[in-house]
């Protein structure tokens, strides 16, 4: 892949590979900067740097996902952080890293279960992926729920 040198671009490219959702849709949530800032505030920088550089070295195309699994997700130090990035994008919330990871690689004060922001909650990928809307926001309008679900075009 062409090497994205900008840190945010690299973060979004990594996130796209991890979430299975294309980079332009991730950018469209408006949350990329906030999520990168959250990760940088919680996870030690050397770990983030290693995560990014490992990812930048992975092959592109169909080989990317297998390489991501063996090179990053299976890694005891990077894997838990990568999985947390997936949860972050789908939920708009940070999940505390697993106890074993915290014991081995350190814990920071910010590593608690928390919603990044009200906008992040609403931008969680889980709602759109479900063909729905965030609970309590972006309502679809009176009676919309009686219609065929999105993507189900035939009666």
């Amino acid at each position, binding site marked *: 892949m062409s090497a994205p040198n900008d840190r945010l671009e690299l973060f979004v490219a990594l996130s796209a590979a991890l979430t299975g959702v294309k980079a332009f849709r991730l950018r469209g949530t408006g949350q990329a900067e906030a999520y990168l800032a959250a990760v940088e505030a919680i996870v030690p920088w050397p770990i983030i740097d290693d995560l990014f550089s490992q990812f930048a070295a992975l092959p592109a195309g169909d080989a990317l996902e297998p390489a991501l699994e063996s090179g990053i997700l299976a890694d005891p130090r990077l894997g838990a952080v990568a999985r947390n990035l997936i*949860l972050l994008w789908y939920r708009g919330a940070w999940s505390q890293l697993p106890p074993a990871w915290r014991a081995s690689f350190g814990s920071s004060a910010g590593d608690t279960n928390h919603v990044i922001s009200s906008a992040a909650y609403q931008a969680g990928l889980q709602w759109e992926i479900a063909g*729905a809307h965030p609970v309590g926001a972006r309502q679809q309008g009176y*009676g919309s729920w009686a219609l065929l679900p999105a993507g189900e075009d035939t009666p």
Partner: protein
Amino acid sequence: MSEAAEFDVVIVGAGVAGALAAGQFAKSGLKVLVLEAGPDTTRDLASYNAHLETFYTASSKGAETPWPPAEGAPQPDGADLFKQEGYFVQRGPHLYGSTYTRTFGGSTLHWLGVSLRMLPEDFELRARHGVGRDWPIGYAALAPWYDRAEHAIGVSADVEEQRYHGLTFTAGYDYPMRRIPPSYSDRVLGAAVNSLEVDLGEERVAVRVRSYPAARNSIPRGDYQPIGALDIGSDGQERSTYIGERCEGNTACTPICPVQAKYNANKTFARADRRHLTLRSQAVASQILFDGVTGAVSGISYKRYDDPRSTSFNEEVATGRVYILAAHAVENAKLLLASGPQSGEGQVGRGLMDHPALYAWGLAPFNVGAFRGPQSSSGIEDFRAGGFRARHAAFRFDIGNDGWRAATGAPDATVIDAVTNQKLFGRQLRTQLADQLSRQVRMSLAVEQLPDPDNRVTIDPAYRDKFGNPRPVIDYRIADYTFEGMAAARKVAARIFRQAGIKDCSRSTAELRFPTAIYDGEEVHYHGMGHFAGTHAMGSDRSNSVVDEFQRSWDHPNLFLLGSGSFATMGTSNPTLTLAALALRTADHIIAKLHDGG
């Protein structure tokens, strides 16, 4: 009664019962004071929306999440159930799983909005089925008040769909708004199961997915005007919002309707005649004062605070000719018990009920459009009546539109399971989540509970809140009658899932989020429905009840206790509509008496 009374009527509690009664009094020209324990932060739009922000940013989203209590007016919270450090002191053997809200508007701020009438046979459970007890009034006496309550709170339904189990309606009557459109998933489930017949003991019951009456705004009939979001300024004037005159499908009735298309008690206050109505928030009633000779109430002592985050207060006394406790089934009982031993021959607080409920959840064979619409829009009402009630509890199903959210915490829980346990990522993760989330189906199986004198609210000087008021001590046990109803409900739910081709996932996950009981050697995971009832039941005479059919205390002639605490039994309907009808009936009774000079 007191010569120098400041008000005609003093009401404790700015929830639905207090609001409806206050509105009637003000309309008839009586001077009313309403004391509300919680802060007044729900009637102007900016403050209401701040509660919505609290919900969005909360990491755990329970029924009370948007409505944090003041220091001096604590409330139960689902998160406290397993910590034994909440507001309730739970003595078991089973946990009482329900919560309520102490703020302006009360628990209508987070209720689901289901507005079913009780069935005629629910009022005569002892006479018809030999269990429970009978009410001193029947369905026919209450029916006109149901009509009025449905218009007062704004209920959407089509009357022709609601005639079942002996429910009758006034000739020509219909609900003020058309039914909420059933969801796509309601329709596909109905298409699959509406031909199904299920055997329950010796009875054969035909299943039907039916739209239930809901206090959520829909298309009005006649000249009815739906009331949407409130925005009441500090000058008391209401500003137009043009929001919430229809349900917009936020899938968040509980814990907070973002557009206020769902009824909350503040709407009733907003329509009341303000010339005769005084609303006093941050005023925690702490003691009822009695005349030692007549037993009549001479005043209500309350603790007024300026800062909801502070534990300091001033004590004041409110006086009236008539006093009404409309503070909630638990709070009414607590306040009476805290005021001395002179009430109710030991019956106050006894007979506490709920609808202990199970969840059934599964995966539909195709996309049903989960997580859209109001939280639910249909139910299965066919098991609310029948000869089986002599042996076990009746039950009703609520069919969710919100995937497995209530049962497992989906979609978050589904995502976490896929990522953390199944180790999915990338395109496979996205594909599986899209497939599974849209197919999630959930039903709540709410089961009747009979009044048991040992299920009760008491107080104990050892347990006090930060204002020194007593905390409710709860004794609660689910009886075999209800457990057997649960077992029958579970079988029916499984049969319905099978008929609809829904893969039953009910036992596989997340059960530890709920209270556990053991019945017949098996663990039962149940949850509360928020349907507190029975703590000051009505009856035909003082030997079997705390209040009469007008909710008047047998012991204190100018004291009325409003709310589901007055229910003799509770059937299977959600209690709000019935307690609203009773509140209107009581208000008219009091108005007639006061205008009589009584």
